[in-house]
């Protein structure tokens, strides 16, 4: 199935055309940095170490729509890159770890976004919120690490 995807018409063209693959890589890196950095800033704010003057809910409301936009673009561009070598990527265990990390990180990002108005309304940001934000931050760092390990351990990418 994955081999078939790799060999299908548009994927083959995309994977073997240098500038196309490079352009999508640029989009993937840009949007990946963009959305992770955006979420990280909100996490840091919840933890109380960034933009302390600003209301948590206000900052989250300003930043999160950009984060989700960036993430959507990173997922689409990432799928293109996956498709170009689907036969190699699909069975790779470190890639599975990366996908799992992304899934869990997204759940935590949603919790932070939804929690922000409540936490902002409290006299002080609750400790459990800070822990959630810290976990969210660490999960994204873990995601980047698992992504960096793929070429090192598996020679892919």
């Amino acid at each position, binding site marked *: 199935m994955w081999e078939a995807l790799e060999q299908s018409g548009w994927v083959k063209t995309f994977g073997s055309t240098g500038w196309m693959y*490079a352009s999508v890589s*640029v989009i993937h*890196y840009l949007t990946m940095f963009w959305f992770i950095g955006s979420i990280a800033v909100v996490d840091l704010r919840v933890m109380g170490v960034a*933009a302390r003057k600003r209301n948590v809910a206000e900052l989250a409301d*300003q930043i999160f729509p950009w984060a989700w936009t960036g993430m959507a673009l990173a997922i689409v561009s990432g799928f293109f890159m996956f498709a170009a070598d689907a036969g190699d990527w699909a069975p790779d265990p470190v890639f599975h770890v990366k996908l799992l990390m992304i899934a869990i990180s997204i759940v935590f990002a949603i919790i932070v976004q939804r929690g922000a108005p409540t936490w902002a309304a409290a006299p002080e940001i609750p400790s459990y919120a800070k822990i959630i934000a810290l976990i969210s931050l660490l999960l994204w760092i873990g995601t980047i690490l698992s992504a960096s390990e793929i*070429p090192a351990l598996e020679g892919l990418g």
Partner: protein
Amino acid sequence: MHELLVSFAKWLEGTPWAVGVRTSLWAYPFTQLIHFTGLSIWIGTNLALDLRLIGVGKQRETAAQLADDLFAWNWIGFCIVLLGGFLLFSSTATTFLVNVAFQWKLGVLVPLALVWHIIVQRKARAWGQTSDTPIIAKFSGLTEILLWISVITAAVEIPNH
């Protein structure tokens, strides 16, 4: 000048940290992690200000407020980028030095984008006082995004040269 750079690069490659990054299975990805984590904070905070200056997205905060909110972590992110980048460069310094894409990236595009960023960040306080920003602010924000895209493009091209 060139001679000096080459001997500096050779010396760098021989330093203990460069040998560590180059030869250990885990050190290279961890160093990449430092560079990429810094880049996320750097690009994330840069784009937030640029997009707000352009007027794309929500307008809960003014550009001036956002510039103020993000300033500290923007530069913390930059320091992390620099640390990771320096270690990555050290590991194979002589190879990077003769790479055309790397020369463009570090010699031309990064300095240009960096100077532009500093100007935009300083100006944002004046441009971003009201919710609606002047046309020069929109132009400057867009230009900064394009400059960082050119930096990433050069970076992606490094392995192809």
